[in-house]
């Protein structure tokens, strides 16, 4: 369901970039999406396919790089990925004062243009 809203943003933003930079045919759209966003790639691809149908982006391929959740410890600075199923604690010092430093991304990264 939220994949459709994200797909809509992709269509709008990529069209805007294509227009402002005079790009003709875009073949690939690369995205960076954090694991915490719980985006289902197939649903996003399908949403994009539907919404881009009558636009210059029709037929472009979506490539998603999933960014894992990483937490940075406020006490000792260690960076780690939380263990699935466990509380967010620093594995180095055990502190619970950690900050998520990646995993929330929802980013348009780059476009592949046919020469």
């Amino acid at each position: 369901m939220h994949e459709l809203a994200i797909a809509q943003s992709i269509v709008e933003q990529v069209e805007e970039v294509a227009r402002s930079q005079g790009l003709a045919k875009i073949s690939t759209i690369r995205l960076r999406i954090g694991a915490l966003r719980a985006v289902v790639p197939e649903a996003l691809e399908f949403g994009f396919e539907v919404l881009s149908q009558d636009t210059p982006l029709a037929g472009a391929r979506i490539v998603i790089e999933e960014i894992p959740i990483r937490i940075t410890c406020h006490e000792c600075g260690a960076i780690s990925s939380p263990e699935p199923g466990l509380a967010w604690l620093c594995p180095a010092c055990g502190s619970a004062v950690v900050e998520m430093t990646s995993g929330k991304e929802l980013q348009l990264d780059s476009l592949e243009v046919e020469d």
Partner: protein
Amino acid sequence: MEIRVVENLLKANEAVAAQTLERLAKHGVRAINMIGSAGSGKTALLEATLPRLRESLGVAVIEGDLQTTRDAERIDRIGVPVVQVTTGKSCHLPPQLVLRALDGLDLDAIDLLFIENVGNLICPSEIPVGEHHKVAVLSTPEGDDKVLKYPMLFHLADAVVINKIDLLPHVTCDVGRIRSDLEQVGSRAQIFEVSARTGEGLDGYIGWLLGLVG
């Protein structure tokens, strides 16, 4: 040829939300985005807390609803200023509509503005509407597995209200599990176990809300 873009996919929404925040700041208003499943009790919580908050604060509500004006009528009935925003097919409250809804409110008379989002746990947590705080509303009949299914909301929420605790004897819901799952998504939320129906537990939640206004 590859072209680097690096743009946030929510930037259009965030820009509008920033305008809302700016306007609220001018009038000293704090805004709360209430997010929860359909039927979790968002409107019921408003009905149970607003009469008490109103004793010491200026309060108002923006009601997001897919189709009806039913929730706005419920708020109107208790005499609190309310603006209805009908979202039609949208599964979340779009920030543009919230910005426009501010025109219908006397911002100088408001300290705390509640924005009831569309009943849904995903999209409203992705799309900011110009709020200072997010309150996640869960209810015991929904079961105890929602936190791990919708981690984004619960990671971001400043408070989690577990509503309908009066129904605990009748439903399968382990509140302890909700609390430990919250730790697993890095939540720093204040957790309140309440019943909007009986009033149990509301003192703590109301105290937290009062503390948001400096």
